[in-house]
């Protein structure tokens, strides 16, 4: 439905010089899927979204929406944003304060140049979309009298009312408080899945991205670091940046000894020899960085069976309610581990660790 290829976008710096915000960005979003651009602030995700919207003019590349070229540097095509037929929700919601809820949502229909709708038709369509976002009761209210969550839903209704080919969401949940954000996350997911609308979602919140997306592109410094399903991104990070940015992780330095079965390697690490997984081929003697998620460091008081078993000592622990965070020291190297609260090992006592080789990911070329 949406194909972006080779997209480069610059912006003007303080002194008028061109600064590259997005570099060689390319991805494809199939019909009905939710695609997320995830990254820290300044990584180019919003610039990429605004380039799709047509609010920024890219330098190079091509953007196609449903087969139609809306931007192409090679063919010199630039369809202005108001003719692209895309719906967009802004981070600030951009609800017009001088209109009612109804008028805000009706605006796209009223200004539509493609098809002129009658008053009755507009009323029906607007009420239908307001009902979808549960604002039907508030149609006549002044837009400024809405709460943050209601404004957010109104912005969504306004973007949906014209039945856009693609919905663009720019950090739509970041201005809500934590509780409401959690609820709107489910709400948004349900709506997107029910309406089956192709969506591009921009966020810096990794849990939002993991919860909502069909697929995710992690962006850093203007380019895409890794693209994949939420599970792939989380369980098989391709780079140190992705491992670090998405979730929390333990990094261990190591040197490759040699392969051990297909896709597995024997690695000498800071805490001793262990078996690690890698998607890429690794050569013996190569330095690597191992990424192990805290919840994948299994702790037991009795010595467990299997590979990658180490003995350590409990250094610190923090009780979180639904889990306990342990800091375990092995050969003076501290590892974070998240365990079930039923594990009550005292600080200073010995403890056994086991790391599933599947969950121990070797990352090439970025060991420090």
């Amino acid at each position, binding site marked *: 439905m949406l194909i972006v290829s080779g997209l480069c976008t610059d912006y003007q710096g303080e002194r008028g010089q061109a600064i590259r915000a997005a570099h060689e960005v390319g991805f494809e979003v199939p019909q009905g899927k939710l695609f997320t651009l995830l990254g820290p602030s300044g990584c180019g995700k919003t610039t990429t979204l605004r380039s799709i919207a047509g*609010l920024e003019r890219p330098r190079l590349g091509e953007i196609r929406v449903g087969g139609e070229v809306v931007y192409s540097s090679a063919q010199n095509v630039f369809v202005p944003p108001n003719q692209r037929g895309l719906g967009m929700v802004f981070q600030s919601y*951009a609800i*017009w*304060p001088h209109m009612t809820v109804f008028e805000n949502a009706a605006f796209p229909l009223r200004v539509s140049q493609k098809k002129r709708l009658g008053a009755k038709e507009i009323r029906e369509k607007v009420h239908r979309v307001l009902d979808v976002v549960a604002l039907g009761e508030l149609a006549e209210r002044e837009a400024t009298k809405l709460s943050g969550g209601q404004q957010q839903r109104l912005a969504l209704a306004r973007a949906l009312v014209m039945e856009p080919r693609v919905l663009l969401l720019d950090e739509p949940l970041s201005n809500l408080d934590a509780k409401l954000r959690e609820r709107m996350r489910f709400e948004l997911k349900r709506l997107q899945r029910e309406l089956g609308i192709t969506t591009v979602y921009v966020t810096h919140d990794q849990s939002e991205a993991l919860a909502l997306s069909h697929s995710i592109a992690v962006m850093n410094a203007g380019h895409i670091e890794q693209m994949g399903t939420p599970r792939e991104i989380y369980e098989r990070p391709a780079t140190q940046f992705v491992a670090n940015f998405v979730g929390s992780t333990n990094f261990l330095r190591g040197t490759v000894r040699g392969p051990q079965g297909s896709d597995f390697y024997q690695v000498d690490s800071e805490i001793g020899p262990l078996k690690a997984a890698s998607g890429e081929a690794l050569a013996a003697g190569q330095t690597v960085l191992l990424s192990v998620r805290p919840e994948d460091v299994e702790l037991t008081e009795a010595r467990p069976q299997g590979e990658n078993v180490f003995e350590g000592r409990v250094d610190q622990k923090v009780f979180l309610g639904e889990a306990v965070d342990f800091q375990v020291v092995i050969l003076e190297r501290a590892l974070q581990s998240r365990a079930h609260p039923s594990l009550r090992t005292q600080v200073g006592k010995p403890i056994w660790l086991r790391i599933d080789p599947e969950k121990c990911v070797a990352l090439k070329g970025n060991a420090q």
Partner: protein
Amino acid sequence: MTTGTITTDAPAFGARPRFDAKWLIIAACVLLVVYLGVVPLGFLLWQSFLTPQSAAKAAEFTLGNYRDAYASAETWILFWNSLKFAIGAAAVAFVVGTLLAWMNERTNTPFKALFYALSVIPLIIPGILFTVAWILLASPKIGLINLALQKVFATDAVFLNAYSLAGMIWVDGLHYSPVAFLLMTAAFRAMDPALEESAIMSGASVLQVLRRVTLPLAWPAVFATLLILFVRAIESFEVPALLGLPVGIQVFTSAIYEAMHRYPSQTGLACAYAVTLLLITSFGVYGQSRLSSRGSRYATMTGKGFRPRTIDLGPWRYLASAIFLVYFLLIVVLPFAVLLWSSLQPFYAVPSMAALKRLTLDPYRTILAYPGLARSVWNSLLLGVVAATLIMLVTSVICWIVVKTRLPGRWLLDNVASLPMVFPGIVLGLAIMVLYLYVPIGVYGTIWIMLIAYITRFMPYGLRYNTTSMLQIHKELEESAAMSGASWTTTFRRVILPLLKPGLIAGWIYIMIVSVRELSSSILLYSPGNEVLSILVWELWENGQYVELSALGVMFILALFVLVLVAQWVGRRFGIKEH
């Protein structure tokens, strides 16, 4: 019995209850502000209902002043002229300022950052010098622009006439267009660009966005700017006095001046005019405050503030740059150049080869040896320094009461201290003059009466500068000083004032600048021997000493320019926010 009782009312140190200087300082400041803000206004109103006092007859209550004022057709012409002038000047300033602000904020005009930096320079030139410069540029007989155009088109038609209503509107509107520029720039910056972008994403065309989103949202700011410009134009004195009076076009401010300078002076009539003028300005200022309180309704949640997309003007952007250039030429370069030229001539002459040969520094020698110069420079500086210092200190206390305490009636104090905002300079001069004429406490005819006028007139500015900084001082900073055992006076002196320093310095310099330029109040209050700089310029103009006036003007503008540079340097050094 417990050994450690806690008492709440006993003094912390020493058993003897001490007299607290806090209340003395607060009371003194409040009384001063109320006296300065309220008494002249009350006296002006009262005076407008009295017959002139003479040796033979005491003043009596009368409605005659208003009857005289409003029965005469002249007053209605006056009223009409004032409205035409003020609306015209506000419109010129608004159109020019808004166009420039839009080009600067929303288009890709080259060198726009430079133009923004230059935009404050026109505000430096005092009104009387700007007006004089435009007389030299556009008077029908000697105006340089007329002469140049006549030469180009080989005719003797008069192209521009400064001595006309249109001329007055043009000069005054141009002089205050930077105010419109700054206000509208702020309005453009305050608007969340996502509001317009979301309309574009909804499929609206550029015109639809403008009509249905941008204009309705900008309307409060537009209206507020127009009101400010209107009030300012109707208070304007220099332009109507220099350009209007010679050809008999009177507005309220110049009519008040005329009424006071007739013999015998018609105080009652002047007061009646002044009250009318006050009503108009009060209406305007009240409208502004209503707008700004209603404006918060339009405050929207803003996101990360993506820089607004600038409109690509294509090749037109060079035209936009050219407009900036012409504007700068009209408002700074030409006025200053014509003053500089005439300051280098033995007698005023239009530029020519012959005149070029006569270039001389004599006017500077004459003006520097001018008997009244040293005295008026000293008076201006003395008044500026004393007024600025007193205002900043007194308003810091007032502002503390308004911002930091929960004292009942503090909003009233705020309003009283801001009350002088509605006084046009000449009306304030008149009110203070009649007040101290009838209340003989020995200030009339001295320099101190001007000090009282300056303090009253510029008090609202001091209050505004102090309020901005005061709002940034967290209550706990004061509370921790109190917990350390400091008295209120010590806390104020050692904690509050140092923290207010950026605002205090910025406000001090600003008041210094506006005091030195002040003319419209001083013109009614000065007495021989107590002239200030702006009065000296006025006198030189009346005497027809144009070259000496130009020499003084050039030096005056350069000195103010240096003062502004110092102010900006201080601003950067101490991190003062722009107001």
